[in-house]
């Protein structure tokens, strides 16, 4: 918590914001999951794609266009007056990779939503978080009529490390999406404990900074 500036007229508390990413292929249910746990209806904002994205964005066929946009959906959960959690949905199309860097910057972890009908569309997300060493959980969105796989089958198909939690969710259900979030934060804490153990760091539970 930080008091706003040195201005004595303000006793403002500026909350710490915590970011969680919701990734997965196009149509995996990212916005649905965000909407089911957010305290506000999912908001959408646009990032202009200009020269920063020209080398990665395929402008073939739209040469006359100097800017395009990528929409970002996100939700908010007020944890307390001091902490606010944001859930950012990652852009589904691969050409918007450049946005992921900003999204991932400072994120505590990610939920990779998987649609078992299109398993391959979640490979890039899994790969991204593994390479960045960003903790993530895999949430299999159980769509109506979709063939249901066992978590172990999904783990095998995505070549996940054994410590990565895999859970089945229904992104439309608040309790289910909430469980994915809880599992993620528990996983982040567990990983932190592991690395603290490896570093032999002096971590006294509940008193570390």
């Amino acid at each position: 918590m930080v008091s706003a500036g040195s201005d004595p007229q303000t006793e403002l508390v500026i909350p710490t914001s915590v970011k969680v990413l919701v990734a997965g292929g196009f149509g995996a249910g990212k916005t649905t999951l965000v909407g089911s746990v957010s305290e506000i209806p999912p908001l959408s904002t646009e990032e202009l794609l200009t020269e920063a994205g020209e080398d990665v964005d395929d402008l073939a066929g739209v040469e006359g266009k100097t800017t395009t946009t990528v929409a970002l959906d996100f939700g908010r959960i007020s944890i307390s007056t001091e902490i606010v959690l944001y859930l950012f949905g990652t852009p589904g199309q691969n050409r918007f990779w450049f946005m992921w860097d900003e999204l991932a910057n400072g994120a505590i972890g990610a939920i990779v939503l998987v649609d078992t009908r299109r398993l391959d569309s979640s490979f890039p997300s899994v790969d991204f978080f593994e390479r960045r060493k960003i903790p993530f959980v895999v949430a299999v969105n159980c769509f109506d009529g979709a063939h249901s796989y066992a978590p172990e089958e999904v783990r095998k198909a995505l070549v996940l490390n054994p410590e990565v939690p895999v859970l089945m969710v229904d992104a439309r259900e608040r309790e289910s999406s909430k469980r994915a979030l809880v599992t993620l934060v528990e996983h982040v804490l567990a990983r932190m404990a592991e690395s603290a153990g490896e570093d032999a760091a002096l971590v006294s539970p509940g008193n570390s900074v």
Partner: protein
Amino acid sequence: MPVDEEIHWFDEAAGPLVRPYAMTRGRTRPGNTELDLATQIVSVLTDNDLQTLTPEQFSIIDLCRHPLSVAEVAAYIDVPLIVVKVLVSDLIERGDVVTRYAGAVERPSRNLLEAVLDGVRRI
């Protein structure tokens, strides 16, 4: 140009009538490059002349009487993120808003994560 053509020469596909970067006088990079999507912004009471602000900046100050993230501000005033960052950056320089930088937390503290876990369990 005949009057009827003048009225209907554009449609929604033409995009916004004010070019986004017109709001920033052509600037595409904020002076304060630390602004992150989740950075919290709060207005500060000052003696600054608010008349000199653009309508968008005025909206930002009005919205941020309570802390809001850059992303929320962009969504509420319906302006692209990068443009909001430039506008907010100017407001920081003027002293009209203060921020709390959110990004690039190398390692979140255990206390913070435990508070988040408790909070998420309560929702």
